[in-house]
């Protein structure tokens, strides 16, 4: 318990320093400009403290705590997804089976059964969902329901479970330990979101995908890609078994796919005409609003690392 490897510990301390600096900047701004309402920013920063605190504690306590934590994250994300999309009433019985797939999927991870982990959702659950719906016998809207259910399982169970599998890959960078790659993925993904936002705010002019996300600009996107690619090259050798060159590549794919994860969930929200996917995280929205880019970066980073090093 709490035996965090040196580099991972430094990384966690680094994150707390960034968080402290942002908190001080917020406090300074608030005291300087009393007339501006900073409630939203305050909620956001407060939620960051909570999220980072919870993630770091679950990663530090033990491997099983961390796996259970990511399973719980899958549960929250799946629940939010099936709650916002319109489903037929009978589909609840198939949704129940997707919920049941969560403990199984994470169980395969805990016993390090890679073969099962990688096909369980895309093969077995994929075949099972239509079977369950056929037994229910409601054919009107069948294709629609099967598609929604399968997509929700892939996004919320399969994608997120890749983060947990990073934890049980054999440790190659002993100074970083098993949680190093997870910290790297989580940090780079969230940092990409923040830098795209900041560059967009500062230099944003040309809209990149106005129909889906009017606030996203080419300047923000490119700013994020350059920052995260460069930073990853320096951080990757410290937290993962990748060297600097591979670190640049990892950062590049994280920033590109992070952007797409974000706009994919934005499209879902546009389609069902909601602003946020929920109210679970004050100042951020729902859990999917926060996890959106991670749904894409987790599997692509995992497989990049896996093919490079294992």
């Amino acid at each position: 318990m709490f035996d965090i490897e040196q580099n991972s510990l430094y990384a966690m301390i680094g994150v707390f320093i960034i968080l402290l600096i942002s908190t001080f900047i917020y406090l300074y701004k608030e005291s300087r400009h009393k007339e501006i309402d900073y409630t939203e920013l305050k909620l956001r920063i407060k939620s960051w403290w909570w999220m980072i605190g919870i993630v770091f504690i679950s990663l530090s306590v033990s491997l099983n705590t961390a796996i259970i934590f990511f399973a719980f994250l899958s549960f929250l994300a799946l629940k939010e997804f099936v709650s916002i999309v319109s489903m037929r009433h009978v589909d609840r019985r198939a949704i129940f089976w997707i919920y049941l797939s969560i403990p199984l999927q994470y169980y395969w991870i805990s016993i390090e059964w890679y073969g099962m982990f990688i096909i369980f959702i895309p093969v077995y659950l994929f075949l099972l969902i239509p079977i369950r719906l056929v037994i229910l016998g409601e054919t009107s809207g069948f294709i629609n329901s099967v598609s929604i259910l399968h997509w929700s399982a892939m996004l919320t169970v399969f994608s997120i479970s890749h983060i947990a599998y990073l934890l049980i890959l054999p440790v190659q960078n002993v100074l970083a330990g098993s949680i190093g790659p997870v910290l790297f993925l989580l940090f780079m993904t969230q940092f990409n979101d923040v830098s795209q936002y900041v560059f967009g705010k500062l230099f944003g002019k040309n809209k990149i995908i106005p129909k889906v996300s009017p606030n996203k600009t080419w300047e923000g996107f490119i700013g994020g890609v350059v920052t995260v690619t460069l930073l990853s090259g320096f951080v990757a050798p410290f937290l993962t078994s990748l060297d600097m060159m591979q670190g640049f590549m990892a950062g590049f794919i994280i920033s590109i796919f992070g952007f797409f994860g974000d706009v994919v969930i934005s499209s879902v929200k546009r389609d069902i005409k909601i602003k946020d996917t929920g109210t679970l995280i004050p100042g951020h929205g729902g859990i999917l609003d926060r996890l959106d880019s991670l749904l894409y970066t987790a599997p692509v980073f995992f497989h990049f690392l896996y093919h490079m090093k294992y």
Partner: protein
Amino acid sequence: MQRVIKILFFAFIVKPIVFIILGLNIQNRQKLPLEGGAVIAANHNSHLDTMVIISLYPLSKIHKIRPVAAADYFMKNKFISWISINCIGIIPLDRTGASSLEELFKECHQALDDGDILILFPEGSRGVPEKMSRFKKGLYYLLKDKKQIPVTPIAMQGLGNSLPKGEALFVPFNCNVNIGDIINIPNSSKEFNDQLKNFFDNQIAIK
């Protein structure tokens, strides 16, 4: 003693289910009535409705929140009636029509006088999942001579999918809870039900 049982029941069983397994999106929380006597009028889709509304209150207040529930259902055997009375604190209501109005409402009126907050479901029954049924007139008659009592409508959405009538399989879905403005009791049950209907139609249609 009853108060202790109810607090334990909600602290360790109901609140974890409502806030962790289900998850609520609450709108206009500030409109929730905190002082009794008051009445909450909610739509009814599931047994979870009552649990969600009581869970909105802090543990120090939950003994004041009393759901008014059908005696024929919740008092039908010893086990269910023990739970209904001790864990949830219901006020049983006779639906058979055998008792006079005054006798029927005696316990509810007493509770309102004691400063309790009553939960009533104007639809009368859980009905078809996620669909509104027609409002009954009972709530109007309950408050006809107590027009100072504020009625707060609460619209809930999603619970009819989580645990609908007649099904034992519980499936987690987030529940949207929207608390409306106080409705003052007008002079006819029709006018009252129209106001209620107006609020619920606006809320439920959004989905």
